[in-house]
């Protein structure tokens, strides 16, 4: 393999706060990546993650002394260059299309002159030759002489954006850095911009470094994706894989927060906010927001290391597979007559950290049995169930007890599962008593916390109520609180809302999702209600007669069902579409 066009190694950009010169802010902290000729790499991350700082470092635009590490272009070290040394690199080799094209042009000079300017400077063209070349470039962007003769304020935002691109491409650079090419644009302008960038890439074979938080733009333009979090890379890999199967919890969170047309699921932000750049947290920078953080994450900064097809900076190797069900089967014999019912046949599924996997199917399809097998209330006859990569059947004693504690079942009918004689406090505290967790006073505190988490009052008057004094919705919340009190990593919810009216259903399903977003855990949601499930599920597993007939990303299963049974289920799902569409209301 030949040396990459651009090799960035352990790049660090440090600023001193203007009003406090002793506090150093490390906006980019040890970033390494390669960019091959003709390749396109996207750097994604939230606002403030250091993306723009990184882009500017590649052009030597930071004050002297701010940048450390290596930037090599064709093997030549650039970080040691002074302002004069950088000049032939800038625009001629690496050009930058800045984020806000509206302010990228000098307001008192004609746009065309500003495009021609670097041509005269770098290529030594005469004024008229440079203008002619600028006209060519503008033509490629669908603009003409009139636009070149205009002053920036006379141009629209989209025109400026395209002229910015023309300006960046003027000296035919090897690398084009595009900083947020789509931010603040309406969808049609954005689509045109992306098509233009795509065409430029194909026509010129330029290497593209795309700085963006627009994940859909990234998916369209980038070969590879590097996810930047608080100045450090969290995950680097092929764009398709990273965006479809994120491994780092941060990438996963970003994708869940990104609005797109591929799913009906609700949006979830990544909990918490970016750390204070002057005082980043110890250990992994993402750990305060990470739902699966362990002790090591708080102490040791994880290096970016290979995990299968990509690089991930995570002590746990990225999102954990909480549950792996591998070809399990369970049969029941019907009393007397020797018939056996295959309740679950050859079922396999995974649940990752933070994921909602929905199992749908009609009554008698084996969903509930599957849930009970996972929750450990039944043992499979064949196959294996692994929790956090540990086969449950291998475990015994304390280890097994710990797994049981971490997997909790929310049953279908709450009235079936709570003793009518117990008070709310006793119901929620019961698992703690049984598992002998904490001192009695701690248990009461834990009960109150769990009740608060599910949105129930935690006062004494409520704690002493008994099940018959509660509404169905309240009791179901009590049952969820009972599951939460053990701080489980996986919740198996068997028709958790089917007994409730639509409004209560909506509240409870959102509550479950909120709790998951805050605490981080896997959710295996067993339901017959496709319409409900698609609002929360990341993946859907369809069961029929004990077998899994189809599984996949929720969006795919809902929009392009493969199996006839799935189509039947979707066709029967509640919908208001049978009201005839009256078309747009005509004006009176």
């Amino acid at each position, binding site marked *: 393999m030949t040396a990459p066009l651009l090799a960035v190694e352990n790049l660090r950009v440090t600023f001193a706060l203007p009003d406090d010169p002793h506090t150093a802010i490390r906006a980019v902290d040890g970033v390494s990546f390669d960019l091959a000729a003709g390749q396109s790499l996207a750097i994604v991350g939230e606002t403030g993650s250091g993306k723009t700082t990184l882009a*500017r470092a590649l*052009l030597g*635009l930071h004050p002297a002394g701010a940048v450390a590490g290596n930037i090599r272009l064709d093997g030549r070290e650039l970080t040691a260059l002074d*302002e004069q040394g*950088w*000049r*032939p*690199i*800038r*625009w*001629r080799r690496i*050009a*930058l299309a*800045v984020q*806000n094209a509206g*302010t*990228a*042009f*000098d*307001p*008192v*000079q004609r746009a065309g002159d500003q495009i021609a*300017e*670097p041509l005269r*400077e*770098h290529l030594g063209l005469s004024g008229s030759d440079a203008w002619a070349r600028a006209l060519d470039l503008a033509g490629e962007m669908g603009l003409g002489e009139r636009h070149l003769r205009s*002053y920036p*304020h*006379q141009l629209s935002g989209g025109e400026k954006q395209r002229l910015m691109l023309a*300006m960046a491409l003027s000296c035919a650079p090897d690398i084009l850095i595009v900083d947020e090419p789509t931010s603040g644009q309406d969808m049609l302008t954005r689509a045109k911009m992306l098509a233009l960038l795509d065409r430029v890439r194909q026509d010129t074979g330029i290497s593209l470094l795309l700085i963006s938080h627009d994940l859909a733009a990234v998916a369209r333009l980038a070969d590879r994706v590097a996810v930047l979090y608080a100045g450090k890379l969290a995950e680097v890999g092929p764009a398709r894989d990273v965006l479809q199967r994120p491994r780092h919890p941060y990438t996963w969170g970003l994708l869940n927060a990104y609005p797109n047309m591929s799913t009906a699921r609700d949006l979830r932000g990544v909990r918490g906010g970016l750390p204070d750049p002057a005082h980043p947290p110890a250990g992994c920078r993402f750990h305060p927001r990470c739902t699966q953080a362990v002790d090591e994450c708080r102490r040791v900064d994880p290096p970016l290391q290979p995990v299968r097809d990509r690089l991930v900076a995570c002590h746990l190797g990225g999102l954990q597979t909480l549950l792996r069900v591998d070809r399990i089967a369970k049969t029941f014999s019907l009393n007397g007559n020797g018939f056996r019912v295959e309740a679950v046949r050859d079922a396999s599924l995974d649940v990752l950290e933070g994921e909602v996997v929905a199992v749908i199917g009609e009554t008698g399809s084996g969903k509930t049995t599957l849930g009970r097998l996972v929750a450990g209330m039944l043992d499979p006859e064949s196959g294996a169930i692994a929790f956090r990569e540990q086969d449950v059947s291998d475990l015994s004693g304390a280890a097994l007890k710990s797994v049981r504690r971490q997997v909790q079942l929310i049953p279908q009918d709450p009235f079936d599962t709570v003793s009518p004689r117990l008070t709310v406090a006793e119901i929620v505290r019961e698992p703690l008593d049984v598992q002998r967790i904490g001192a009695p006073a701690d248990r009461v505190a834990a009960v109150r916390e769990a009740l608060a988490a599910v949105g129930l009052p935690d006062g004494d008057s409520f704690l002493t109520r008994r099940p018959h004094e509660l509404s169905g919705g309240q009791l179901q919340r009590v049952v969820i609180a009972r599951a939460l009190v053990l701080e489980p990593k996986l919740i198996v919810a068997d028709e958790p809302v089917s007994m409730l009216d639509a409004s209560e259903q909506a509240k409870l399903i959102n509550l479950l999702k909120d709790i998951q977003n805050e605490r981080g855990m896997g959710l295996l949601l067993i339901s017959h209600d496709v319409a409900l499930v698609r609002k929360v599920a990341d993946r859907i597993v369809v069961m029929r007669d004990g077998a899994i007939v189809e599984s996949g990303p929720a969006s795919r299963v809902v929009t392009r069902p493969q199996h006839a049974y799935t189509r039947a289920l979707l066709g029967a799902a509640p919908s208001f579409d049978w009201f005839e569409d009256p078309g747009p209301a005509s004006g009176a």
Partner: protein
Amino acid sequence: MKSRFALTLLSLWAVLTLNFLLPRWLPGDPLAALLDPDSSSYVYNAEVRGALEAYYGLDRPLGEQYAGYLTGALSGDLGRSIRLNQPVTDLLREHLPWTLLLTLSALIAASLLGVIAGSEAAWRRRSPVDRALVVVSVVASNAPVFFTGMILLILFGVELRWLPLAGGRTPFARYDNTLAQVRDYGAHLLLPALTLTLALVGSKFLLVRNSVIGVLGEDFMLVARAKGLPPRRLKRNHALRNAIVPFVHHLAAHAAFAITGALFIETLFQYPGMGRLIFESVVARDYPVIQGVFLVVSVLVLGANLLADWLTARLDPRTQEN
């Protein structure tokens, strides 16, 4: 631009009208304002005063007086000086060129200095050079002109004897050629112009420096740098080119200050400009002259602003719209 021109005409009319009304608003009749009872020229005889009133047209209706005043002012008749018994226009014609010579040369020198030093200081923001320039400019622009003028006078005129002490030219001198004349005028001009330059340069320096610093923080400056342009081009074609627009406006507003600043300096250096004319007229309560000077200064400021607007429209394409 058209509307700016109309506005200037309107302002001019307002100035003329104010000039007409002010003496008539003063307590007593305009003649009492003209002739101070304390002054030696006060006319005690009521009959003579009445004749004077008739002579000056003060017994006619106000509208008629106003019309007469306007036609007079527009045709260059600003009345007569009571002290010198000369037409005010003649006095202005004699003194104004001296003041213009002084203020214009000082304004040009201060502008050049301010722009060059200001943009360099901004470019080297927070460097020792920048800090030193800021301190010097603040001190220079706040020191009273008579103080700096006195020091310069003592140093170059008294101690070193390099330059003449007073006046606009050597009295009774006859020049063999133009060069000798220019040299003599220049030698007399140097100290007052230097004093005025020092008074003016500070605010110009600070303004240019701050404008350039503002421009340097703009995105387009970052882009210009990213384009690999040489520093000279960054400074001149982009940074200064943008920062010059507020400077032009400042310059127009400063025209009035330059003239009043010149007043003290002209007195100090016995320079034969408007400053001395004003000073002596005020002492003698020579109202027609004071009014004439007021009118001329107003017209100059209005003209400067109009010029600045025209220049801005040239310099900043954004202002050409509407």
